[in-house]
């Protein structure tokens, strides 16, 4: 299920606080839609991104998608393990399958995003 401590976007990214920074990934729904993930393109550390800017990309055999920054910030770290093991996103989307971390985030921006309950309701409109 969608963890209650995270916030969500309509593009199926999640974001959660970890100390001073915020971790971003894609949701279980998103990984399930993509199928077996074969490649992930991660941003450069230090890159400043705007809200909704294309920040990473994810590819499976039959699909491709962009991962947008849920909020504005600066990339402070990326999950390098995904370069070797992109399947971590399929296996553990809310954990080991995280994509990147953002610093310099205005915490108020998160209030504009959906909480777990709202996102779960939103998924009902997405069909399969």
């Amino acid at each position, binding site marked *: 299920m969608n963890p209650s401590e995270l916030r969500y976007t309509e593009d199926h990214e999640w974001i959660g606080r970890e100390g001073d920074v915020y971790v971003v990934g894609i949701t279980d729904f998103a990984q399930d839609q993509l199928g077996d993930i*074969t*490649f992930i*393109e991660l941003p450069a550390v230090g890159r400043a991104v705007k809200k909704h800017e294309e920040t990473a990309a994810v*590819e*499976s*055999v*039959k*699909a*491709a998608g962009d991962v947008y920054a849920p909020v504005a910030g600066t990339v402070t770290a990326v999950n390098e393990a995904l370069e070797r093991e992109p399947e971590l996103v399929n296996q553990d989307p809310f954990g080991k399958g995280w994509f990147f971390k953002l610093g310099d985030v205005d915490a108020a921006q998160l209030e504009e995003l959906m909480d777990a309950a709202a996102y779960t309701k939103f998924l009902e409109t997405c069909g399969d």
Partner: protein
Amino acid sequence: MSWIPATETERRSMLDTVGAASLEDLFASIPAALRMQSWDVPPGRSEMAVSEYLGRLSVKNDVCSVNFLGGGYYDHFIPAAVDALISRSEFYTAYTPYQPECSQGTLQAIYEYQTALCRLTDLEFANASLYDGGTAVFEAATMSMRVTRREKVVVHESLNPVYRKMLETHAANLGVEIVSGENPEGAACVIVQNPSFLGTVRDFTNLAAQCHAAGALLVVSFYPVSLGMIKTPGAMGADIAVAEGQSLGQPLGFGGPYLGIMTTRKECVRKMPGRIVGQTVDAEGRRGFVLTLQAREQHIRREKAMSNICSNQALCALRALVHLSLLGKAGLQEVATACHSKAEYLKKKLGFAQIVNDGPTFNEFAVRLPKKAGEAAAKLLAKGFLAGLPLASVGAGQDNDLLIAVTEKRTREELDAFAAALEEASCN
């Protein structure tokens, strides 16, 4: 009507199954006002009549003159087995291998083609073909822009002027800055050609290093047959190698079909346009081949695709592979050596003309004649020679400049006779 087999009886019976009264009923969704009334299309003619008519058209074209015309497209020998194998309809009546289990012939052939081109260019990845040499240059430019996130393209003087024009046409609405020279600062790539359009052979290793220091890519447009002899794009440090593939077993065909070749390094492969075949296994562990990295392509990524290419020139790629397989490792070297040696032999015989090239050449070189190249060419045509390409016709030289190409097909007798005829035509 031949090719449409349905008889009147069958049409009637199928209409009954469909529940339509007439064929006309099936077009009811087209508003009546939009239906076509008449058109100026002639009545059909028999296969015999059409073949005759096209035969008469074809013999108005000159394919018998002794050919010294190149300019990027060359009169090379094509072994008979190439046409024989390409004529197998299991190849030419199939389409893109969307269903890999019943397309292993196509897929393995493309994998073998990719292998041949990687080995030829000393790079790691090839696609399954692009359209031709000029569009491959455009695709290399936009690929470089994706890799570097820059929007300036530098074109070296060595590039075929027709490719340059095609690049400008294709990129007209993209906001790309296309400049001449070889300065890589701020550029996505520098595009060079080797041998140059005028036939000069260079080593671009230093330029590759300068490009990389400036964060730009080096794109080398090459002439496949020349790689039987000269230093490869990969060895020079090129990031993308592209080529017009005509010289690999494609008949001249008045401009096509040919193929665009593209090879690249591993770091750039995900930004490469076109289809790519990869090796894999089935559930029983048997080796097989599939289209891979399809997430780059238009049918999945639509407006965010690396290119809009869908149909490519796969059958031409198969031709190139069969041709290279027949020539083999030694044969390609022999062809390259023959082209170069014969061109050098001819060059020495043209003492009456000034060589335009500023360095060594492979099998093509430009001469400045004592008179207009077009006039000399017209005189030689009357003697049975296609003398070469007057460079002014492509905006690449002076009125007196003639670009002369020599392939392995030219004999010493032809070279001697041509040298004498050209001297007579241009000095008298």
